[in-house]
C-alpha cells in the first residue's frame, strides 16, 4: 500500500508563510513612507512656487540680476544668488575633488592596512562635524586670517564667498574621500594583480586600472558632495554674507540660494506673501539644479565607466 502523500503546507509551514507575508507588508510600508515623503516634499515645494510665478514673471526671475525679494519695491532676479551658489559650489569642488581623490588613492592603493584602519574612521568622524562649526570656522578663522590676508583682488570684508566656498570644500572633503575610497577598494584585487604582473607600478595600476573601474562610484561621490555643497546653508549664511550681488570676485560677500532660504526662512515673512513664496521658488530651483547634476552624472558614468562584473 502506498502511503498517502500530501504537498499541502502543514500547520507550522502555514504559520511561517503568514509571518513572511506580514514582514513583507511592513517592509513595503516602510519603503513606501520614504517615497511618499519625497513626493510630498516636492508637492509642498511646487505649489507655493507656482503661485509665486503667478505674481512674478518667470523671465524676470530667471534673467534678472537684482535680488531684493523682501524690499519694497521687491526685485526677483534670482541670477545673483544663483551665481553665488555656483561660486560656493565650484570653489568647494576645487578644494574637495583633488584632495578627496588624492586621499582616496592613498588610502586604497598606497597606505598600509594599519594606516588605513586609523585614517578611514577619522575621515568618517570628520564627516559628522556639525556645519555650524564649519560656518564659524569660516567666519572667524578662514576669512580674517587667510582670505583677507592672501586674496589679491579688492578689499575683503567681514564676509566672503571665497571663505564660505573653501570651508564648504573642507566640509565635503570626507564625503568625497570616503565614498571614492569605498569605490576603489571594491575593485577586484585580481585586476590589480593582472596589472602588476605586466610590470606596472602603483601609479599606473591606480590611474589606468583602479580609477576607470571605480569611476561610477567616484562620480557618484563627487555628485553627492556637489549637491551638498550647493545646498549647504549654514556655512553660506554665516560666512558668505547676506548681500545678494552678482560679482565676479569671490573675495566679496554674496548670497547663495540656500543662504537666502535660510536667511528669509527665519525672518518674519507673512505666509502667502510673494516674499514668502520666493523661498519656495528658490527651493524649487535648487532642487532642479541638484536633479540636473544627478542626471548629468548618470550620463557621464554610462559613457566612461568600465564595468568589471
Amino acid at each position, binding site marked *: 500500500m502506498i502511503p498517502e502523500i500530501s504537498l499541502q503546507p502543514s500547520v507550522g509551514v502555514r504559520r511561517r508563510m503568514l509571518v513572511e507575508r506580514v514582514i513583507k507588508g511592513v517592509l513595503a510600508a516602510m519603503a513606501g513612507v520614504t517615497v511618499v515623503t519625497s513626493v510630498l516634499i516636492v508637492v509642498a515645494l511646487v505649489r507655493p512656487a507656482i503661485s509665486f510665478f503667478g505674481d512674478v514673471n518667470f523671465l524676470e526671475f530667471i534673467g534678472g540680476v537684482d535680488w531684493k525679494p523682501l524690499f519694497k519695491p521687491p526685485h526677483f532676479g534670482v541670477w545673483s544668488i544663483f551665481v553665488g551658489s555656483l561660486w560656493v559650489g565650484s570653489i568647494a569642488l576645487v578644494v574637495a575633488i583633488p584632495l578627496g581623490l588624492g586621499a582616496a588613492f592613498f588610502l586604497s592603493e598606497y597606505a598600509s592596512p594599519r594606516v588605513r584602519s586609523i585614517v578611514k574612521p577619522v575621515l568618517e568622524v570628520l564627516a559628522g562635524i556639525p556645519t555650524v562649526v564649519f560656518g564659524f570656522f569660516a567666519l572667524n578663522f578662514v576669512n580674517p586670517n587667510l582670505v583677507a590676508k592672501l586674496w589679491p583682488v579688492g578689499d575683503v570684508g567681514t564676509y566672503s564667498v571665497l571663505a564660505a566656498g573653501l570651508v564648504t570644500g573642507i566640509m565635503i572633503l570626507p564625503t568625497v574621500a570616503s565614498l571614492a575610497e569605498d569605490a576603489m577598494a571594491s575593485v577586484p584585487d585580481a585586476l590589480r594583480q*593582472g596589472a602588476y*604582473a605586466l610590470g606596472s607600478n602603483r601609479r599606473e595600476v591606480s590611474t589606468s586600472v583602479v580609477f*576607470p573601474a571605480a569611476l561610477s562610484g567616484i562620480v557618484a561621490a563627487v555628485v553627492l558632495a556637489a549637491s551638498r555643497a550647493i545646498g549647504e546653508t549654514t556655512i553660506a549664511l554665516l560666512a558668505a554674507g547676506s548681500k545678494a550681488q552678482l560679482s565676479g570676485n569671490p573675495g566679496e560677500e554674496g548670497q547663495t540660494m540656500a543662504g537666502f532660504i535660510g536667511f528669509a526662512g527665519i525672518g518674519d515673512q507673512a505666509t502667502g506673501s510673494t516674499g514668502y513664496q520666493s523661498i519656495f521658488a528658490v527651493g524649487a530651483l535648487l532642487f532642479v539644479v541638484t536633479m540636473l547634476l544627478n542626471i548629468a552624472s548618470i550620463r557621464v558614468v554610462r559613457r566612461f565607466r568600465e564595468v568589471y562584473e
Partner: protein
Amino acid sequence: METQDLEQNSTEQETKISDNVVLTATDLAVFYGDFRAVRDVNLEIRRGEITAFIGPSGCGKSTVLRCFNRMNDLIAGARVEGSVKYHGIDLYGDQADAGEVRRRIGMVFQRPNPFPKSIYDNVAYGPRVNGVRKKSELDAIVEKSLVGAALWDEVKDRLDASAMGISGGQQQRLCIARSIAIEPEILLMDEPCSALDPIATARIEDLMQEIKQQYTIVIVTHNMQQAGRVSDSTGFFTTEVNSESDRRTGVLVEFNSTQKIFSRPDDSRTEAYITGRFG
C-alpha cells in the same frame, strides 16, 4: 676508453643543460608572517620546456610560482628566504626591480582577469606601460599577440568590444595574449584552466604546446592528467604537518622529467599521489 667517452658525454650534456636553465631556486622558503608556507625548494627551470607543479592543496606550489615573478611582494607579511636566480641574477637582490622582473616573467592567473576595457586595450596595456605609443606599432603588437594566443580569428572584428563580453576560455586566452604582448621570456600559469570547461581547457593546452619554444612555461595545476599531458618536467609538492604547531608546511618532494614522475618516481610519496592513493 668507452668509460671516458661516456663521462665526456655526460659532462657535455650537463653544460648543455645548465646553459638552458633560466630559473634556479636554491633552498627557497616562503613565510607569511611567522608561518612558513613552504621550505627547501631546489629546482631548475629549463628554457623551452613546460614545467608543471603538482600536489595537494596547501602544498605551496602556487606560493613557489608567485616567487618567480615577485607577486608575493604584494602580500603584506610575505617574506622569501633562499634565492631565486634568473640567468644567474638574484630576483630578490638589490639589482632587481619587481616591475622589471615581471616584464620578463609574466603571469596568467587562476581565474581569467581581463581588465574591464576593450579587447584591444587589454592587449595594448603592457606595451603602453612600457612606453609604446605609436598606434601602428600597437596595432601590430595586438594582432601578433592575439594570433599568438590563438584568439585573433575569434575577435578580430570586435577589438573594440569589452573584454568582459567574451567567454571564460576566450578571456583566459586574452590574458595569455596580454602577457605575451610584452614578450616575456617565461610565462607563469597558476592553475590557468581550473575555471574553464574541458573544451576551453584543451584549447589552452594546445596553445601551451604551440608557444613553449618561445616562452618557457611553468604551470601550477591540481590536475595530474594535465601535468602528464602538457609538461616536460614535473615537480611534486606535498604538505608536512608540524607536530608542534599542527600547521602545514609545503615541501618539494621530487623534481624530475614528467615521464619519470609518472612511470617510476624516485619517492614513494610521489608514487602514492600519482596512483591516487592520497591527495
